[in-house]
């Protein structure tokens, strides 16, 4: 008899695929507050988490949601929240706490138009810089951005993995188009996906130094209740977790926070080149716009234009190496975005005059079409 396949073929929305990815990664705690266009994530997890002994709670606001997520993570759960721009603004306070206290967690921001209440049901990519600099103080950021439903699933797993591995909050920036779009994906529940769990201390409690500077920059993390009693604070702290105002303790601490990400750029910077080797013109795009970019490149090639694409799945840390490669090999670089130029600003920053960089900035609440990208290419080349 034929063995029954464990593969599930599903027609999923981006938000639903994020839920599937989170559960695969081992998420057992979700706290959130209703907001469009992220609500489906809450609704689905409110059904699925209690089925597997997890916890879903709807908090009184987004500040409380991220607070509860951080608390759950400190107690040992893989935890996440999901929101949109206005809620993400409220989360900035506790996001900084998760950075300084090095608490793993995942924050999904389904981006809609802003500022303020803005365009609740229309797409945007205008929170790229908020993800980078939204919380106060110097800090590193990991932000991932899917452009397909499959990537929603895969990148959510990666977001959990990075957060556990580097003890850092990881942000998943998904634009409203990808959050609500449906595509068929096959999920193999038996598939051997790499799942990373935080490194726990192996030393006896009296030897445990909770914020020790290790070569990898990531200290082992004891969960509350595991027998390692230690102090966690949002104040700048020494290696034992106690508040410090000694310059010789502050400086290495802040530098370590950066180092644990910068030492691992190669691992966390994910992207894909399409027909980029011989391209005169390269489109650098992310999210739903990367889909239009690939279509524009294919159509352009049919008309004899040598167009390539760099699709960015990691927005922070900025994929400098890959972007510099594109700038060196292409004559023209186009950066289409549903904002006034947040990633193009970074592209221009690293450009050393190698290529001409042009932008497409769409802020009317509608998507960027392949025709618009091709039109811009004709205009500038």
């Amino acid at each position, binding site marked *: 008899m034929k063995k029954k396949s464990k593969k599930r073929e599903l027609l999923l929305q981006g938000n639903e695929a994020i839920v599937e990815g989170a559960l695969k990664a081992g998420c057992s705690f979700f706290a959130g507050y209703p907001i469009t266009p992220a609500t489906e994530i809450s609704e689905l997890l409110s059904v699925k988490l209690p089925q597997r002994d997890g916890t879903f709670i709807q908090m*009184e606001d987004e500040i409380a949601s991220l607070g*509860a997520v951080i608390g759950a993570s400190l*107690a040992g759960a893989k935890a996440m929240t999901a929101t949109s721009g206005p809620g993400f603004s409220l989360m900035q306070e506790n996001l900084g706490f998760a950075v300084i206290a090095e608490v793993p967690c995942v924050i999904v921001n389904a981006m809609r138009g802003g500022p303020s209440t803005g365009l609740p049901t229309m797409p945007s990519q205008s929170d790229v810089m908020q993800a980078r600099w939204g919380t106060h103080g110097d800090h590193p950021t990991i932000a991932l951005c899917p452009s397909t439903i499959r990537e929603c699933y895969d990148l959510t797993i990666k977001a959990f993995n990075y957060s556990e591995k580097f003890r850092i909050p990881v942000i998943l920036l998904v634009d409203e188009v990808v959050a609500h779009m449906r595509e068929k994906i096959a999920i193999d529940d038996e598939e051997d996906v790499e799942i990373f769990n935080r490194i726990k201390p192996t030393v006896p409690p009296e030897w445990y130094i909770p914020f020790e500077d290790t070569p990898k920059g990531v200290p082992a993390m004891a969960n*509350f209740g595991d027998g390692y*009693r*230690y*102090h966690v604070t*949002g104040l700048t702290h020494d290696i034992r977790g106690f508040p410090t105002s000694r310059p010789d303790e502050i400086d290495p601490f802040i530098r370590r926070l950066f180092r644990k990400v910068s030492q691992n750029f190669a691992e966390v910077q994910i992207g894909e080149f399409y027909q980029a080797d011989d391209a005169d013109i390269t489109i650098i795009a992310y999210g739903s716009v990367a889909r239009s970019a690939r279509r524009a490149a294919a159509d352009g090639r049919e008309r004899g234009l040598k167009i390539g694409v760099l699709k960015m799945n990691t927005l922070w840390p900025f994929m400098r190496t890959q972007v510099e490669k594109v700038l060196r090999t292409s004559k023209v670089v186009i950066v289409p975005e549903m904002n006034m130029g947040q990633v193009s600003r970074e592209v221009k920053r690293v450009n050393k005059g190698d290529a001409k960089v042009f932008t497409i900035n769409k802020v009317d609440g509608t998507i960027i079409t392949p025709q618009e990208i091709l039109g811009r290419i004709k205009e500038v080349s």
Partner: protein
Amino acid sequence: MAEITRLIHEYLRHDKKFPHVWCPGCGIGIMLGALIRAIDKTGYSKDDIVLVSGIGCTGRLPVYVDFNTLHTTHGRALTFATGIKLAKPRLKVIVIMGDGDAVAIGGNHFIHAARRNIDLTAIIVNNNVYGMTGGQYSPTTPYGMKSTTTTYSNVEHAFNISELAVTAGSVFVGRGTVYHAKLLDSLMEKAFAKVGFSVVEIISHCHTQFGRLNRMGTAVEMMQWQRDHAVTVEKAAQMKAEELKGKFKIGVLVDRNLPAYQDEYEKVRRWAKGSEKR
């Protein structure tokens, strides 16, 4: 070994650099003593106690004691505590806050934690002022009092923290003062024994800021004020309304039984798994 010495060795952190941040004469030390004595009586292992705090003078307390300790953002302590309790229900989670922390910036979290009946104990030190930042008025600064931001006079009306806790749904609400230290022990013991959201409000003094600006005298004089204005719940029941004017009640204000959130959520899990019908 004297009892006090045993408690100090058992519960204070020896690797933490003392002295502490509090002013000489501050009431938080008395509250800390009561807290440690009450926790000691619960029989919980130190590994299973989590002490969570927010920001302010009171927020600095957890750093000195040998539990799982978490010093969170201003006003948000209850939200972090909610996550800890739900992710690991066997832990005893105690939240320490000041008045500004609990009912100004954290006011919304406070009423919702009470409404949900999350199994936490909230201990609120109410000294009527923001002490750490230099004496600005708080939501519990009485009408007509001075602070560094009500230099003419406060024209806002104060919250009654305990009454707010009762109305929002807490299963246990007790109020004490740092003058009535023994009462604090018993209120905390009762609160820790309760399943659900319990609150202990502690009337304290900030002689450095509030007392100085309002010419209320030294720490000792402010504690004498507590002694003279506190009326036990039992005594208050026999007093007329006009006799109670300007006084405040101390003791157990509410003690009732309601299902705690995590027990209710267990039901949700059973319904979700189909092991029980809704």
